[in-house]
């Protein structure tokens, strides 16, 4: 686990999520998809942890599991000292006042038949936060202002809004209950390029202004480095490397991180890293390779790599990697 200097806001230990695979007439259990396979990390108050990985890495599942939108199979999650896994329905509802989520697709995450005012007010009404409708309305105006949308958006229908505007509404809704922690699940991937920049700036400004802790899930490493304090690199449901954002992107210590960083195109020829081209495709999450799951694509793999799953060990202050080799990076 990764200790931080202050008491962490969120502490995840040995998180696991397995999906059953059933075949045949009687739905016999034939195996599991190891979507999340023993993941542990901490996030301090006001800190942004980036979760980097490609498709099939399990990063989205991790994000949803931390909020218990997906029920973890195993593991412990502590939020502000409370045991999240032990919460009953009422406790879970309370948790949702402090921990919120921003989804990827701004077109799918808003009910097309609701007016914007009701979309943003929903958390307030569900959680019964304000006593009068007037207070709710006032709060909605505040929130619209926070995301730089004018007040007349209240009466509009989502179908009239662009992707970027909708995503602002989604952010406003997430902030309605004054959460301390936000899971941002690929919040900009579905947006157009120049709008992405606007939302990234908005998120940056908001998290500083409101002191939010954030779990930022993305496959865009440049944006992740820009917004995150620390980054965890995930592959096939396991954390390969976790450390300060700059360290991960400038001096990666795990072969997968190295390949990932080198794959990002760059227009500055002198800044381009020597490209490590991985062979083949991602391994099968149903039967992951023994030992280190990355060894089948790793250019530095040795026979010993197949024996045991490498433990995350500290190689520099707050910088951990799961690799048995120290001699290559």
């Amino acid at each position, binding site marked *: 686990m990764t200790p931080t200097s202050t008491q962490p806001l969120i502490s995840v230990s040995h998180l696991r999520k397995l999906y059953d695979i059933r075949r045949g007439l009687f739905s016999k259990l034939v195996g599991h998809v190891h979507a999340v396979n023993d993941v542990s990390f901490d996030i301090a108050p006001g800190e942004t942890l980036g979760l980097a990985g*490609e*498709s099939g890495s399990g990063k989205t599942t991790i994000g949803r599991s931390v909020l218990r939108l997906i029920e973890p199979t195993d593991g412990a999650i502590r939020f502000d000292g409370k045991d999240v896994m032990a919460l009953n329905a009422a406790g879970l509802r309370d948790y949702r006042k402090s921990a919120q989520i921003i989804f990827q697709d701004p077109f799918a995450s808003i009910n097309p038949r609701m007016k914007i005012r009701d979309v943003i007010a929903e958390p307030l009404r569900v959680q019964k936060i304000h006593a009068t409708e007037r207070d709710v309305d006032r709060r909605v105006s505040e929130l619209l202002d926070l995301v730089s949308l004018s007040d007349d958006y209240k009466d509009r229908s989502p179908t009239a809004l*662009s992707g*970027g505007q909708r995503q602002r509404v989604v952010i406003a809704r997430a902030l309605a209950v004054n959460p301390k922690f936000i899971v941002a699940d690929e919040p900009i991937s579905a947006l*157009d*390029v*120049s*709008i*992405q*920049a*606007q939302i*990234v*700036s908005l998120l940056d400004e908001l998290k500083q202004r409101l002191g939010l802790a954030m779990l930022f899930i993305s*496959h865009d*490493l*440049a*944006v992740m*480095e*820009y917004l995150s304090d620390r980054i965890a690199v995930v592959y096939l449901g396991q954390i390969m490397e976790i450390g300060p954002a*700059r360290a991960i*992107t*400038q001096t990666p210590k795990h072969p997968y991180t190295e*390949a*990932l*960083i*080198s*794959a*990002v*195109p*760059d*227009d*500055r020829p002198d*800044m*381009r890293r020597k*490209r490590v*081209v*991985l*062979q*083949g*495709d*991602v391994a099968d999450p149903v039967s992951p390779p023994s030992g280190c799951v990355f060894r089948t694509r790793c250019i530095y793999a040795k026979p010993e790599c197949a024996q045991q799953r490498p433990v995350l060990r500290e190689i520099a202050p707050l910088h951990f990697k799961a690799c048995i080799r120290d001699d290559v990076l």
Partner: protein
Amino acid sequence: MTTTFEDSRVLSVEHLSVSFDTGKRNTPPVTVVRDVSFSIGKGEIVAIVGESGCGKSTTGLALLGLNPGSNASVKGSINLAKKGGQTVDIVGLRERELRRVRGNDVAMIFQEPMSSLNPLYTIGAQIEEALSVHRRMSSKERAAEALRLVSMLGIPSPAKCLNSYPHQLSGGMRQRVMIAIALSCHPGLLIADEPTTALDVTVQAQIVERMKQLQQETQMAILFVTHDLSLVAEIANRALVMYAGQIVEAGPVSDLFNQPLMPYTQALMRSRPRLGDVRHRIKPIPGGAPNPAALPAGCTFHKRCEHAVAGRCDTQVPSLETTDDGLRQVRCLRWRELRQVPQCAPVLQGQPS
């Protein structure tokens, strides 16, 4: 009318305009591509870069006569060099002749390979089908050629791949299959419309490397349509920046990135974070892309431009001007005066005076 290109050009587009009928009465057609002219030489990789709605995809589709539906009207000329050496104008070609050209002289790969592959047939069957359309081969020769193409694209276990169905392959493999199909008849020009946008970054790197290698070997020209500026820098020799249906800047990639002349290009570069760029605070471009049915007066970018001057940029329409060395083009009223101020590295934070 058959002519040939005197130089080694593969494509010459002149004053291309594409507009779509809205279907509503009393509304004029919407022009999505306006007066676009450019050419591609043999072995060159040219990128068209811009955001969605700028007309880049429509331009790419027009080059193959693929503009959807009967409500599209295409004007101008698209002169494509065919294998025999003659050129043909795609605009106005009948469907039958277009079919002869497609796949043979010019091929296209799309962003979403799943929609271009028939889920009911094996990969091998689909490659062989493409081969049988344009080339004369026995079925044994076709099978061998399919195997060769698939291996050439770096697909592991090529024989197994040929026997698989599209849904059994990953996105990266499917895209490689698409490239194999596109290359099967050795076209002189390949049009790639956002081919790696839907793929993971490591897969994108693999495919880009492979495309560059293949291009070196076959000297095929590539027109690469994308919104990713960094990808453009990695893969292209020349780039055309499009905004609101027009080319707003064009030139060799290294010049473009060292010193972008058009404020939109500069703003685009300054708005993205880049790995390792520690000091750079990104500066998003305010507002949104203009609606092609209701374009602003004067320069289409003036409302979002930090260098816009009232009275000029909102009334005068800039034309595409060429630099003195003839290598670059810019569509901006103020580019010469703005060039005086050094703002080459987009990393600078301050505003030029």
